[in-house]
């Protein structure tokens, strides 16, 4: 199959001149399209969707809006422009020129980082593939599809690195990325959260707010990498990732807005009455928040991790905003607080900083996530309703790391197994909660119309009106 590279695959990596890369992609691209048709958004291949496509990395070219059929989306390969004289900014190679090729001794670790990141991209497309059938509006459907195609592009970005820098191993890994399946018992996706279902739109919004934000922080740390092509790739991906954060933050915010409006109309905080009015009660929103927050906490990995130390020390993965940190960027003698359970209490202990880098990134993430929760609280406040959403404790409901062996409440209290059994449904969505939320999901696909349980957005996409026909069915 021949590909017109400049048109079909917009790129700034000289694809038209790179025969090796072309050959690899000629093989992989049809497999990707097959995967998209099998596992991409269900029953939507023929829709014309008002999508943003990146056609170059400058401000004029990276947000090009037009109607596109998703299988014809131009997944491109983009690296942020190179920074002249860029150095490795941390770890034992600090001060050396950033690597333009993979250092032999770090090859397998680097590949592992890229594959782990790359695996999350198709995974989330798979997790979200049925949501189009229950979208609350054309606007939201379009946003879902935008998230999906950009996850697809992020897969391309990682596959580019595998093809361009890892030879045969890279090609095999790239194929495996299309073979694993989210939630598959035999061949699951690598990370746990990416094997969970995204069964309804509240889950989707929570996922894009919390879990995609993990993606943002992982990309931010990889954007500091001493391996320059990885750093530049991730930097560009971050621009797109912002849209996913937006879908999550504004999505949950609009659900809250609508609930508060109905509560005020009915002048009630009775959950049964609120549910009967067809909107999602705030306590249920809190439970969804707890679930997604805690599942995402695990994505940062073990609190104390020798892998994290190795990745940092060898210059592969930095901290969030590494170059803005005011320290020696070696961290050999520094320590960092981590959580432990000692004598039935969650306490803070000092761990070697290098081993605690997952925790450090988790803390950066928590600060960011909590700030957004506060913005949701402002919506509630503005409606005059005395209810406050809260992020659960970092140690709540953990499944990875030493904290996973204890049962810990959202406020950080260590519980007995029995206490957990009696109370956990106050904190995490029950089957009934999920069934209720699912019962609200029905497709609304008329321009300008929104499902009853969600408020319209403050403004449309790309300055289009809210009632713009964001998706055209054919």
């Amino acid at each position, binding site marked *: 199959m021949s590909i017109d590279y400049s048109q079909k695959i917009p790129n700034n990596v000289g694809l038209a001149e790179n025969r090796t890369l072309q050959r690899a992609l000629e093989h992989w691209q049809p497999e990707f399209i097959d995967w998209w048709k099998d596992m991409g958004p269900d029953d939507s291949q023929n829709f014309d969707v008002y999508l943003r496509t990146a056609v170059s990395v400058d*401000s*004029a070219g990276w*947000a090009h809006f037009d109607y596109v059929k998703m299988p014809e989306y131009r997944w491109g390969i983009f690296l942020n422009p190179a920074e002249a004289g860029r150095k490795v900014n941390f770890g034992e190679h600090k001060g050396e020129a950033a690597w333009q090729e993979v250092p032999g001794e770090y090859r397998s670790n680097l590949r592992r980082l890229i594959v782990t990141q790359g695996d999350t991209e198709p995974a989330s497309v798979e997790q979200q593939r049925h949501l189009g059938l229950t979208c609350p509006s054309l606007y939201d459907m379009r946003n879902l599809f935008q998230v999906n195609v950009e996850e697809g592009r992020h897969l391309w970005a990682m596959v580019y690195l595998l093809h361009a820098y890892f030879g045969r191993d890279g090609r095999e890994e790239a194929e495996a990325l299309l073979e694993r399946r989210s939630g598959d018992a035999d061949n699951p996706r690598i990370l746990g959260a990416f094997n969970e279902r995204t069964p309804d739109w509240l889950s989707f919004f929570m996922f894009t707010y919390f879990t995609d934000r993990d993606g943002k922080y992982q990309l931010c740390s990889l954007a500091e990498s001493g391996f320059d092509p990885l750093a530049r790739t991730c930097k560009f991906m971050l*621009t797109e990732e*912002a849209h996913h*954060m*937006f879908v999550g933050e504004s999505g949950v915010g609009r659900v809250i807005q609508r609930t508060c409006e109905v509560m005020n109309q009915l002048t009630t905080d009775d959950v049964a009455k609120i549910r009967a009015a067809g909107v999602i009660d705030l306590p249920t929103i809190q439970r969804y928040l707890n679930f997604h927050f805690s599942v995402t906490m695990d994505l940062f990995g073990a609190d104390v991790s020798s892998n994290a130390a190795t990745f940092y020390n060898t210059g592969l993965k930095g901290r969030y905003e590494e170059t803005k940190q005011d320290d020696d960027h070696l961290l050999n003698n520094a320590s960092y607080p981590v959580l432990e359970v000692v004598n039935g209490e969650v306490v803070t202990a000092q761990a070697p900083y290098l081993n605690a880098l997952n925790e450090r990134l988790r803390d950066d993430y928590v600060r*960011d996530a909590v700030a957004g929760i506060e913005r949701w609280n402002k919506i509630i406040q503005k409606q005059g309703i005395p209810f406050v959403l809260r992020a659960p404790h970092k140690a709540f409901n953990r499944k990875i790391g030493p904290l996973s062996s204890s049962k810990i409440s959202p406020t950080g209290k260590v519980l007995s197994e029995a206490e957990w059994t009696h109370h956990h449904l106050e904190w995490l969505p029950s089957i009934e909660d999920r069934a209720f939320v699912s019962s609200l999901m029905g497709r609304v696909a008329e321009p300008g119309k929104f499902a009853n349980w969600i408020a319209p957005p403050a403004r449309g996409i790309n300055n289009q009106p809210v009632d713009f026909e964001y998706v055209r069915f054919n």
Partner: protein
Amino acid sequence: MTTATTTAGTIMRQHLIDPEICIRCNTCEESCPVGAISHDSRNYVVDAAKCKFCHNCISPCPTGAIDNWRHVRAEAPYPLAEQLLWDTLPEQVAVEESQPTGADSPATTLPDDVERIAAAATSGQGGVAPPPWSAAHPYVNLYSIQNPAVATVSGNFRLTAEEASSDIRHIVLDFGNASFPVLEGQTIGILAPGLDASGRSHHVRLYSVASPRDGERPKYNNLSLTVKRVTEDHGGKEAQGVASNFLCDLKKGDKVNVVGPYGTSFLMPNHPGSNLLMICTGTGSAPMRAMTERRRRKSVPNEDGKLMLFFGARSAAELPYFGPLTRLPKEFIDIHLAFSRVPRQPRQYVQDLIRARAADVAALLRDENTYLYLCGLKGMEKALTKPSVRSAAAMAWTGRRSMPSCCGRDVITWKPIDHSVWCERDVRR
């Protein structure tokens, strides 16, 4: 018109971020080339002293929060410390407007709609191009939305044949005793009466003036517009254009609220020996008609310069001003009409004619006294980016660039990437 007041300072448009919509993703801060955007744990803010209005941050913003503007006194913009404490954007407070007292003291602030359209139209080439050195000095923004001029319709004629699919009209507006001086290539804003679906006044709609500076009828205080009745949206779906239908339905004697004039860039040269190369489709012909007419009315029409026009439409019946155009002497203007929907004839577009006349076009462009004007429909832009057109013309399109005014449905602008690539922005977003 209110009495002219001169304020101590000028009024500026301050760029602000809506803290209620912003998700603090940092994309704007990353994309700002001059470090004007910063943040604390609460808000992202723009430093009015640093922002250069390059708009690099606008399209990457996922939320639209970045696209907010307030008119403030230049000496007292909202300081960063105050912005950092906001939970919501302040409303636009009334700022004492400085009315121009003459060409040397134009108002410094344009209506938001006009700013937005102008920014979109010129962003492709990195801002507004300077006018030709010999252009006359334009008056701009004499009439604001709060204080529009009232014009009276003195004529409304259909330009396209009855059987043509499009209804394009020549509308003449008379300003009576009000002063409304315009130059060829400038635009005026029409305020359609009534409210939109959300209860607000309709946006300002811009139209290029189709008549020369001395009026549609010389020595009368009037001007003309070329207006196409919009009956469908970009996607071909039925949609009634608010302003165009209002204008097309006007009868003689009806009153219209007009703001402007606008445009300081897409102006014609006035020095003898200057050439005009004009490329347009449909109602994009309005400014071309004004410039051509200006030249024609001079005692020495060509002034040793050349006029060359490439004009595209579906058919002769749909080409505004077809009759009068074909009657212009060949030695006055070199006209090439492209028709894309004539039965039993191959479709022909302006780029086909440019390709056929590549040598002459290139020769004209090499002359530093040539000014290029481009105005028309979106489809033209893609066609003009074709390598065959560029290489056929074998020239640098840069050089004496001039900008199209931003009017009507679509506007094409061009930008000098590699000296050869055209770029467009559809301004009706």
